[in-house]
């Protein structure tokens, strides 16, 4: 299924270009292409400058950010599902997103800079992962139910802490920014944010892709992995650190966006199979295309912006329901 990678990449490019052509400000498709081509070749755009601004400064950062975050969250979902050997985990379910959002909100309330924001999000994302691991450790591996419950508890705890911070924050300056975190939005995308997200997301993804063969082995189970010569615990922790890094970068710029990390890995697995050497890159590309599509809908369908989390939930929750039903035997067996 190696051919899946170029197909997914091509799909992402198409989705990206089409998204650049859609929006509340009317820009004819031909003009969009001209602007993009002009940006690449360095030619000045002969048409209305506002059209160029809309395409390059409003839509382009948003599409890039959506691609980075969608891809990052999808790839995190794949890695988490392999690390926990559980199809029901995702950055949101496992509480990493909430932990990261608390870390970022804390940095905001303390008035720290962007570097500290991402760093703090990373630390608390790791903390959330650590808590879930503690809850589920011991006695030959964790049951699915325990992992999901552990994640729900952790996620709820950190969400509550974020709410507490909103209560304490200055309503004039920091509160509006924190509140937007809870909803998840790409509405304030800028190239600065793209850069802030790109570094951790691409770095984390690179680590995961580099570990793709070991992740395959890890999903056989700890004993089998050790028998083959892979040391499961260091690999697992590297994996989880990479996930925390990606999620920290994503949450720091867009707030908590749910469901992408859960649903995309399954959809892609149905297409390309469980081999992580293909699954990882294709999940990134498909996740990117998915979030760009959803975000384009969110900002185009009506004059009022629909919150991104609403749309991803509308797609994700029914898909999760289907997954739960398919897996219910396995859940009850090992609960």
């Amino acid at each position, binding site marked *: 299924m190696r051919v899946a990678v170029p197909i997914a990449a091509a799909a992402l490019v198409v989705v990206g270009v089409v998204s650049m052509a859609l929006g509340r400000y009317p820009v004819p498709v031909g003009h969009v292409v001209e602007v993009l081509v002009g940006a690449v070749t360095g030619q000045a755009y002969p048409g209305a400058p506002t059209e160029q601004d809309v395409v390059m400064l*409003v839509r382009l950062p948003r599409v890039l950010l959506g691609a980075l975050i969608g891809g990052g969250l999808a790839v995190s979902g794949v890695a988490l599902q392999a690390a926990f050997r559980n199809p029901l985990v995702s950055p949101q379910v496992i509480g990493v997103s909430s932990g990261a959002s608390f870390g970022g909100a804390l940095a905001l309330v303390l008035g720290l800079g962007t570097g500290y924001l991402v760093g703090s999000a990373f630390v608390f994302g790791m903390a959330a992962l650590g808590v879930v691991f503690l809850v589920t450790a011991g006695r030959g591996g964790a049951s699915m139910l325990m992992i999901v419950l552990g994640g729900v508890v952790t996620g709820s705890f950190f969400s509550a802490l974020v709410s507490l911070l909103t*209560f304490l924050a200055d309503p004039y300056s920091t509160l*509006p920014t924190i509140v937007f975190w809870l909803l998840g939005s790409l509405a304030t995308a800028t190239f600065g944010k793209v850069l802030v997200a790109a570094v951790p997301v691409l770095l984390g993804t690179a680590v995961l892709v580099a570990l793709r063969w070991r992740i395959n082995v890890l999903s056989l189970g700890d004993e089998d992995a050790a028998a083959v010569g892979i040391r499961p615990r260091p690999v697992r922790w590297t994996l989880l650190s990479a996930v925390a890094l990606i999620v920290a970068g994503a949450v720091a710029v867009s707030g908590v966006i749910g469901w992408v990390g859960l649903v995309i890995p399954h959809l892609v697995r149905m297409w390309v199979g469980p081999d992580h050497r293909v699954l990882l890159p294709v999940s990134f590309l498909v996740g990117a295309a998915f979030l760009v599509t959803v975000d384009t809908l969110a900002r185009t369908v009506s004059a009022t912006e629909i919150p991104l989390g609403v749309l991803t939930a509308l797609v994700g929750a029914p898909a999760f329901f289907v997954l739960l039903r398919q897996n219910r035997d396995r859940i009850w067996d090992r609960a």
Partner: protein
Amino acid sequence: MPGGRPVGAGDLSRRTVLGSALVSGAALLAACASGTAGGTPAPSAGEGTGDGGTLAAAPAGPILLTDQRGSVVTLPRPARRIVTIPQPAASILIAVDQSADHLVGMQNASWVAVRDGILGTIFPAALDVRHDVADDTFTPNVEAVLALQPDLVVQWGDQGSGIIAPLENAGLTVVGLKYGTQDDVTTWISLFSRALGRGERGEMLNIATDTAYQQVIAVGKARPAPKPTILYINRFVGGLKVAGTGTYNDAYIAMVGGQNPASGPGGTSGKGMVGVDPEQVLAWDPDIVLLGNFDAALPRDLYGSAVWRGLTAVKDKRVYKVPLGGYRWDPPSHESPLMWRWLSMVAFPGQPTYDLRGDIVSSYGRLYGYQPSAAQLDSILRTATNDGSADYQQFHA
């Protein structure tokens, strides 16, 4: 005792334990009850003696108020300890009462406006008033309100019974307010003044406002087409929110003779403050942009940003931060007549030119018994912030 168990030091019978628990529990309750009665916050020193203005002979009998929900509320005597939850209510109350002595609790945003505006200077006592009685969704902390022992609580009456019923269930006297139009503000001033036993002051203030209102309406109607498009941005940082249909901002934009692109044809169907993305604002391309007082956005944030450079309002330098006087001028308040004049001069400079500084001085004399200095007028009108925008010299001394 023959046949009985020897009783040792640690061998308490269950009856003894239960009996002592009951006794100590009762003693504790009695202590708490008397403690609460004795530990009430002392009525403010200004009560009955330090009122900012003269108390006209208050009617001897109980005061009957009909609030905006249609409920009839009875006060046995003029209110002396008032808690306000709607954001403009605290400042309006202080203005009607010409003191902060009868205000014992307010919502946090009201307090921020007092702190950042001129009311904190004119009535420093207002800064000490408790401002943690409700959260940003106007949900009251009922026990915090009760602890202040108010004789009147002011709350929004049009946002569902969930935020008002708990107060009434706790035995408090509550008036419910409605939001949206100038008539509502007139009703609020009338309600507050009658609750304070100063009904004639409320009438006087309302007459002055009505005169100004009729004048603005007449001038606004006579404006020739095309009407300038004016967009009010409620939140700029962390996600755009603009005023849509049914907002007070929409009403006064139309009143002065402008047009709100967010309502009407081509606008959103959303009521109230609606979230939009920058592209939508670029598509509407307003002639004038107003930045509200609910976040820290400034005109230079738009002037310096590449995203907004194509906006007509940015090219013509017609982005203005709304003034902050005794209360924020963007939402409805007792200073709204000043806002209408300001907006009229900003949208139609020189057509006509009002003496807004003189208006503020005479209004503040009437409202607060205070004469602001030239520097304070500059601060209220935000000359430092808005001087980079077109036609702002007209607001200078």
